[in-house]
């Protein structure tokens, strides 16, 4: 049996691994941090209907529409089919609306006109000067959950997933990939494999830059704001060419709003800027005039792995303006080295299938892709806390749940969801980390990490919450002052 090493434990990497595994190919997934540590854990949470891209990128739009339908059948455990609306304002030019309707129709995207009064009844707080409303099949994609479902599904079929393991370089023999060197906990080792897929998202340029050909990724960050309440249960889109601050997604108990698009050098997400958050609020006020008074939990950002058309461009397969797959041997690199860049969460399975076709072809495996039809099992229900005391009140996390996780603080936070609610760890961080060794250092780290997201939205009651958090830290708990 052939084995493929997949670099990157995000949606793309796991999608590729899953597709290959279903064809009978062995896979090893290598992730430098935690699963979901990259862009796939820092996105908007929208399972696109495709309507957003109908005008600007019809291929991507069609891909989204198809994948939307497929994912609802194969992964219902990670999707909330809330439906979405596109809203136009009186001041918007009606011309775009007409183009958009035509483009949706030709891409096969279901759009239904809606009564404004009915939409207002479902979505409180809308501006009074709306002119048009359409319903689409938008849904909410629970990214963390789907990644965990994928990891379990991959492991169940014998695939391996190594977290906190960094891919360092290819091992080649006679111009063919024979393995991958990886490093974890300061130790280097080689993993034997017949092909390597670089699915390192915004880091893909760093990882595959020396594999032959010019592989340039242009990282672009998008900032998102999390409101503390789920104000409504529909995805709300602005009926306008894709731009900043045009989508609201209800997620569990919160609402996520964004985004922006700013090019940057580094693949790492920086601290979100106040200017970006304020700009978002100003734009969003056009749809929800009271937006500045909605309580914000925090802002965060993710980095899009946009590819730059370089020398390799000619040898890549342009599947849409959305994602590309490179076979490095076509640019003088070793055989069996592949890179995939770009895409969306919504189309992760499609990307997996396309990469799977290419890689399976290289390996001489002729089983076709099955990821379109095989169900990904939902997660088992969270065990009830029983008589265990509550450790994090906002998210109802019990001490038993916290004690059940070993790993880094980030892992603990992402698994149990502690410190993720409205208080952002003010009243629970010391408690949860107090149960662990090395608590002081971890506590300082977690505080800085949480504050990074709260500060750019520190106005109104959000500012009061941050003031309280700091009083609790320094006055009640005596944490060292950070000034």
């Amino acid at each position, binding site marked *: 049996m052939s084995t493929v090493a997949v670099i990157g434990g995000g949606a793309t990497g796991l999608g590729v691994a899953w597709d290959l595994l279903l064809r009978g190919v062995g896979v090893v997934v290598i992730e430098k941090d935690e699963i979901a540590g990259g862009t796939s854990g820092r996105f908007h949470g929208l399972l696109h209907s495709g309507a957003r891209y109908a005008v600007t990128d019809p291929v991507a739009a069609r891909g989204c529409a198809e994948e939307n339908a497929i994912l609802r059948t194969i992964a219902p455990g990670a999707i909330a089919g809330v439906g979405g609306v596109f809203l136009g304002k009186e001041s918007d030019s009606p011309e775009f609306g007409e183009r958009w309707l035509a483009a949706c129709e030709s891409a096969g995207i279901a759009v239904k006109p809606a009564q404004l009064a009915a939409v207002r009844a479902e979505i409180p707080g809308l501006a009074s000067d709306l002119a048009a409303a359409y319903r689409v099949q938008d849904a909410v994609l629970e990214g963390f959950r789907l990644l965990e479902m994928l990891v379990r599904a991959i492991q169940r079929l014998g695939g391996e997933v190594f977290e906190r393991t960094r891919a360092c370089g290819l091992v080649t023999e006679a111009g063919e990939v024979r393995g991958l060197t990886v490093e974890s906990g300061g130790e280097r080792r080689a993993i034997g494999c017949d092909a390597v897929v670089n699915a390192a998202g915004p880091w893909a340029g760093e990882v595959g830059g020396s594999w032959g050909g010019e592989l340039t990724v242009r990282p672009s960050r998008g900032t998102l704001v999390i409101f503390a309440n789920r104000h409504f249960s529909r995805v709300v889109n602005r009926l306008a060419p894709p731009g900043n601050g045009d989508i609201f997604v209800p997620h569990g108990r919160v609402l996520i709003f964004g985004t922006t698009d700013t090019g940057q050098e580094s693949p790492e997400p920086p601290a979100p800027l106040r200017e970006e958050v304020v700009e978002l609020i100003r734009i969003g006020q056009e749809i929800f005039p009271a937006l500045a008074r909605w309580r914000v939990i925090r802002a965060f950002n993710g980095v899009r792995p946009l590819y730059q058309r370089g020398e390799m461009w000619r040898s890549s397969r342009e599947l849409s303006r959305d994602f590309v797959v490179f076979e490095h041997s076509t640019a003088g690199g070793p055989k069996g080295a592949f890179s995939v860049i770009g895409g969306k969460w919504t189309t992760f399975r499609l990307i997996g299938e396309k990469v799977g076709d290419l890689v399976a072809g290289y390996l001489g495996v002729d089983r076709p892709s099955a990821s379109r039809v095989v169900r990904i099992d939902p997660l088992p229900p969270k065990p009830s806390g029983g008589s265990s*005391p509550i450790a994090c009140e906002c998210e109802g996390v019990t001490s038993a749940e916290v004690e059940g996780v070993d790993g880094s603080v980030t892992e603990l936070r992402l698994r149990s969801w502690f410190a993720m609610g409205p208080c952002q760890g003010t009243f629970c961080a010391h408690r949860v980390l*107090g149960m662990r060794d090395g608590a002081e250092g971890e506590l300082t780290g977690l505080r800085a990490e949480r504050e990074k997201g709260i500060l750019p939205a520190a106005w109104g009651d959000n500012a009061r919450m941050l003031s309280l958090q*700091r009083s609790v830290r*320094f006055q009640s708990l005596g944490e060292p002052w950070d000034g």
Partner: protein
Amino acid sequence: MGDATVNVVGRGPTGLFAAAFLRLRGYRVRVISRTAGSLALWGGELGFGSAGLAGSPGGMPPEVWLAAWSEGAEILLRAGVPVAETLPELALSTVTALGAPKPTFLTPLWQYAACEPEPACFVGLGGVGDAEPKAQSSRYAEATGRPSSYRQAPPPPGWRPGWGPLRFAEFFDTDLGMEWLLSAVAEAVGAVEEEVVLFPQVLGVERVMTALGELGRMLGRPAYEYPLLAPSIGGIRVERRLVGLLNGLGVPFYRAGVASVDGGGSVTAEDGRRFPGDATILATGGVLGGGFTVDLEGWITDPVTGESVGRVREARDLNLAGYRRVDLRGDATLLAVGSQVGGWNPDRDHNGGAMILGTVHQAIAALEAR
């Protein structure tokens, strides 16, 4: 101006202390506030930084400080908050919910505070979220170099997950709770080697001193509490007792948001009510209390006076912003006290209590000079 009427806006620790100081000097006082203040968020131990009485922040002569602190202690005693009869010379050391030592100064006697941390046994109570006695005692031993051990007592009968500190405290204020404390808990603690035994701060709002006295007798060494986070039972005890004292002294409380203060010192509320007075004291807290609001651009403004007092760029700016002076108009008709006054840094210097007493004292001096 001893028989003048003073509006105190805010009923956090600063407003309550200001009202008591003024009433005891003969002023007619009324307390107007939108909501409760910050006392339920902290233990009610008044910090003075690590400098003790020797350093006098705010440029106040040491003897003035001493008088302010003594009067603060007297007010607490009159209100029924037990504090030591004599002021400590130096900052005392108390212990945080993490088990780490922290400087304090005027501290209610239910809470552990000593000049030098002593060998201590930490007791946890089943179901009290912040009580992690194993982690606390090891941190305490590490930070103080003093021996420390811990005990874990079971949860009380009838306990359910989700009981907060206030529910525990209500339970210990009942006879059943007291009985269980002195039997099951005392038994779980057993013989202790350390000098003091420390319990989580939930031993009743009303009957805590009785509970600690009995526990101390049974265990053969002094029993105290260590503070937890919000809601803080220590702060709630102080708040209830200070409000009780003021009620007894005939100070009326009004629930109202204050919109403005006119040139003479009278107050207009957001709902149009007017509170005539000869002076108004703004004890409206900083950003946390609502005394300052922060706009989208980060500008920090007092909504009552309209004055801008800073801008948030770093997180620390939030708790540092404030007026540079106490007497805002120079004629003692409008005075800012507590977190309204910048230049103090309770986050870094642990001088929250000093800020409260120091600014209230300066406000009174301005009124008296009028």
